């Protein structure tokens, strides 16, 4: 579905991504992890063609760099880390924005577009809030509104940059569960940056660990979430525990004054 081949992104002289290759199949959830500044967001921005890149990114065999904005928006929905939420826009109008890739340049939304969005609001439990203004919603409700807008694009690839950073742990899990259900319903390819490594391991099929713009390792969560693998990029302050039912829990470890390699980054 989405294939990165030797993708390099430069911000001036510095390379934010250096030759990253990775792929995610249809219906697969690829979790992107790594310390701050590793290039996680840049990888998503490259896939959404918000930055220029070298190398190639293909979605369903089409090169991202060769697509017009509208065509790309029909293939990729992107949820940034801090979506801009006009406080005076209603939830319904906000979700309808997601239909833009399917609406002609100067056309208006059709009844079919409104139908699709009404269905999504229903699916997200937002129907009672359809007429409310974004500025009056709670963090969890906003999160679902943002997801609904992204899904309204009906794109097969969903890019999520830290989709749950503003939520408490319970709502974070609930939001990721919702993404997972939608992924299965619509066989979406999900690429998500998740800072919480435990959650990343619980939800992603595969993890891509980035470090200083390079792919340090990739594989299933069990092979990536290991002390010796994480110690390089994150420093020694991490500790992976395995629960009796095989889940990996990544926790912090005091370092008693000695700073790990990543401790000050």
């Amino acid at each position, binding site marked *: 579905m989405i294939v990165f081949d030797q993708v390099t992104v430069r911000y001036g002289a510095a390379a934010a991504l250096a030759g990253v290759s990775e792929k995610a199949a249809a219906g697969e959830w690829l979790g992107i992890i790594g310390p701050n500044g590793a290039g996680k967001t840049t990888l998503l921005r490259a896939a959404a063609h918000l930055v220029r890149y070298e190398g190639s990114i293909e979605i*369903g065999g089409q090169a991202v760099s060769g697509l017009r904005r509208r065509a790309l928006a029909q293939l990729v929905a992107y949820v940034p880390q801090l979506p*801009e939420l006009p406080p005076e826009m209603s939830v319904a109008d906000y979700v309808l924005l997601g239909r833009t890739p399917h609406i002609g340049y100067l*056309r208006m939304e059709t*009844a079919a577009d409104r139908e699709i969005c009404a269905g999504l609001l229903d699916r997200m439990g937002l129907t009672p809030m359809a007429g409310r203004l974004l500025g009056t919603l709670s963090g969890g409700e906003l999160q679902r509104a943002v997801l609904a807008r992204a899904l309204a694009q009906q794109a097969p690839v969903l890019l999520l940059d830290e989709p749950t950073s503003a939520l408490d742990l319970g709502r974070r899990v609930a939001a990721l569960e919702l993404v997972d259900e939608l992924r299965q319903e619509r066989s979406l390819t999900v690429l998500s940056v998740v800072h919480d490594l435990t959650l990343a391991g619980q939800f992603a099929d595969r993890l891509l660990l980035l470090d200083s713009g390079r792919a340090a390792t990739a594989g299933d969560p069990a092979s990536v979430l290991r002390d010796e693998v994480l110690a390089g990029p994150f420093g020694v302050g991490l500790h992976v525990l395995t629960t009796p039912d095989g889940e990996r829990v990544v926790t912090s470890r005091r370092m008693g004054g000695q700073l790990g390699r990543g401790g000050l980054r």
Partner: protein
Amino acid sequence: MKSAVGKAGPASRPAPGPRSALPRVRSGRAIAAATAVLAVSLFAGVAIGPAGLSLPTVARALLTELLPWHPALGVPAIDAAIIWQIRLPRVVLGALVGAMLAGGGAAYQGVFRNPLADPYLLGVAAGGGLGATIVIIAGGSPDLLPPAAFLGAAGAVAVTYVLGSGARTGRGPSAMGATAAIVLAGVAVAALLTAVQTYLQQQHYQTLQQVYTWILGGLSLATWSDVLLILPYVIVTAVILVAHRRLLDVLRVGETEASTLGVDIARLRLTVVIAATLGTAAAVSVSGLIGFVGIIVPHTVRLTAGPSYRIVLPVSMIGGAAFLVLADIAARTVQAPAEVPIGVITAFAGAPFFLVVLRSRRARQDLA
């Protein structure tokens, strides 16, 4: 993959079902209210004047021309001429100018996502002023004023746009920040042109009064030919701006997210800027520099009727038309028979009104 793309494409949308319960932006009421205010303003603009015609006379004079087969109205020819050749062209021109200044301001605020943006910011005022000044000091015919002001105004924005968008590093999605660069280039171009204009004005002090009068703006010399001169621009600009109302709403989530929703930001910005600039330049060319309308009218609409461009664009144009007609009534009556410059009225009456609106709806923040 093929199937997924197909599924996402418009071809396979579900057939339109029964109208969904999704609430929608309702612009009808605001448009109706603004239109009613405009209608009253237009009539007041025609009815009020130094000749002291009675309301029935005004109504009959209007009807006589509109209903030529109606023989029994019997209005003195002089009264009909006052209405049709003096008052009406002035009122209609004021309405068109007000619509363009306010609509242009609303569009600029939307496309630059800046509550202070209006075409004046990118050089329309400075360029128009310079064009007019050159004609006046060169002793050119007054007929040359509108084209010179128009060229100056549109030319200044074109220079601003080229310099501002050239400031970014290349084309494409990496070119974020172009908006800020264009606004800054506009400030620089306007400062430069204003400096040239001021210099020319000071060097030719014998025409100072004339230049100053033009710059303050006014509608006192309005004729039907002025109306016909700018009407094509007004129509084209109004149609293009209103046609972009949905895309300007998409832009409310920012340029980056609008891009990921499939909007070609550079094309949208260029189209809206060209349309708004032509309309405003046309307005400036026949009325001089009437300030403040492009800022206060759109924001008053946002604060009272809502920030969706489906409301802001049409209602700003209608409301701007009404506002300028009312301001012009004040301009020619408060010190009759002398006229107060209309720009003084728009600021003097508009600023306090706007501050009241701003304070009463301070909680609203979605100004751009």
